[in-house]
């Protein structure tokens, strides 16, 4: 994987994905290692994403690397009208690897083609965010002991949720059964269902999940945002249907774990947090180890 960029999860073969997950496990055991000593990593956040940026910067710091960059476009030369092309060409000279988040879709692919150093896509608009997908895969494998033949429930905004699309595509490599639970307006788009049809994978769509929750191995929660609804009354009608409460977890499988890409608003009630099946905060911690593994893989250090 040395000198490759990570733009989309599909850029990596199943074997390569598993290699990163194995390496993530090593970093979980021993997170502080000076493997990036002497390296400079640029974190270019053309739109703010504090959580993702801090996770990458924590990963870089724990590895002893140095960071240059900016946290939002207003503090960079972009605000003076510089093209992405020029920014990437220039910054390539200053660093060993670029971590980039940008509001335009396809910007990361474009950057990876002009950069002379590897590029990690930390989110390009609604398109891809592969380090999130890898940390989700790691969290699933760690809690279930495997990736094969799981039953995954995806809940909430399945129409616009980039995270669930990427995770669904990635998990389709391991014979997953999917249950999609969403309001009518935010259903999984046809193109993704067609993708599963072509692979012959099973999926079921529901508007509610209280009756079927006992089948889940993983419940992946996402935020249902008011602004996604054309009719605010529709939002009011459904907003409480997609909230997970501790009382709902009574008949769930012992191995079941709840994931969420965070930040959460109210879709997981706080009374779930102390349930051992709540895994979202550990999931966020796994993100740091996953990013350590990605950085070292692309730099050819591990």
């Amino acid at each position, binding site marked *: 994987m040395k000198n490759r960029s990570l733009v989309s999860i599909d850029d990596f073969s199943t074997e390569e994905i598993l290699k990163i997950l194995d390496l993530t496990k090593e970093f979980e055991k021993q997170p502080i290692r000076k493997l990036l000593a002497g390296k400079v990593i640029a974190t270019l956040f053309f739109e703010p994403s504090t959580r993702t940026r801090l996770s990458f910067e924590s990963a870089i710091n724990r590895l002893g690397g140095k960071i240059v960059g900016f946290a939002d476009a207003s503090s960079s030369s972009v605000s003076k009208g510089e093209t992405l*092309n020029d920014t990437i060409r220039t910054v390539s000279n200053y660093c060993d690897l670029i971590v980039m988040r940008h509001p335009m879709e396809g910007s990361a692919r474009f950057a990876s083609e002009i950069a002379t150093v590897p590029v990690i896509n930390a989110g390009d608009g609604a398109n891809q965010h592969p380090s999130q997908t890898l940390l989700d895969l790691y969290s699933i494998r760690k809690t279930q002991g495997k990736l094969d033949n799981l039953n995954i429930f995806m809940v909430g905004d399945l129409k616009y949720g980039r995270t669930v699309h990427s995770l669904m595509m990635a998990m389709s490599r391991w014979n997953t059964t999917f249950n999609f639970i969403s309001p009518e307006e935010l259903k999984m788009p046809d193109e993704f269902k067609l993708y599963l049809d072509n692979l012959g994978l099973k999926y079921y769509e529901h508007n509610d999940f209280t009756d079927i929750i006992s089948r889940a191995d993983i419940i992946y929660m996402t935020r249902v945002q008011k602004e996604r609804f054309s009719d605010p009354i529709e939002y009011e009608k459904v907003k409480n249907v997609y909230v997970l409460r501790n009382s709902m977890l009574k008949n769930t499988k012992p191995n079941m774990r709840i994931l969420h890409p965070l930040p959460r608003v109210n879709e997981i009630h706080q009374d779930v947090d102390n349930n051992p099946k709540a895994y979202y905060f550990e999931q966020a911690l796994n993100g740091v180890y996953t990013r350590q593994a990605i950085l070292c893989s692309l730099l050819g250090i591990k």
Partner: protein
Amino acid sequence: MKETKQMSVSAIQNGTVIDHVPASNLFKVIQILGLDRIDNQITFGTNLESKKLGRKAIIKISGVFFEDKDINRIALVAPDAKLNIIKDYEVVEKKVVEVPDNIIGIAKCMNPKCITNFESVTTRFRVVSKKNVALKCHYCEKITNQENLQII
């Protein structure tokens, strides 16, 4: 029969006749092949009757013979186009166009948030369906299909 149909636009001695172009896309074909920038004699007829297309156009270009990779560029806007290669007033070869596997620099990505609509980037698509043309953007990974296809 065929001969008389083609006579509706005057014959050429040497060159290429592009037939069965949808009348509505005649000028797109001219643009894609760069026919508006060459000095060769070109005659075209449009809004001619066609059983298959309703109204079709024919372009006759004197003294020009296209490479397959160049002519296939028009497949997006004229998928049924047929080429007659003319030498000394005779049809010496017939060709059909084929939608290529990749489209580079012809089509515009329909996604308003795609980087190709903001930076000067040559567009690139993988053709995911040839029948009802569907193009997957190499950059934003969104699909542009026939209905929202725009030629740059």
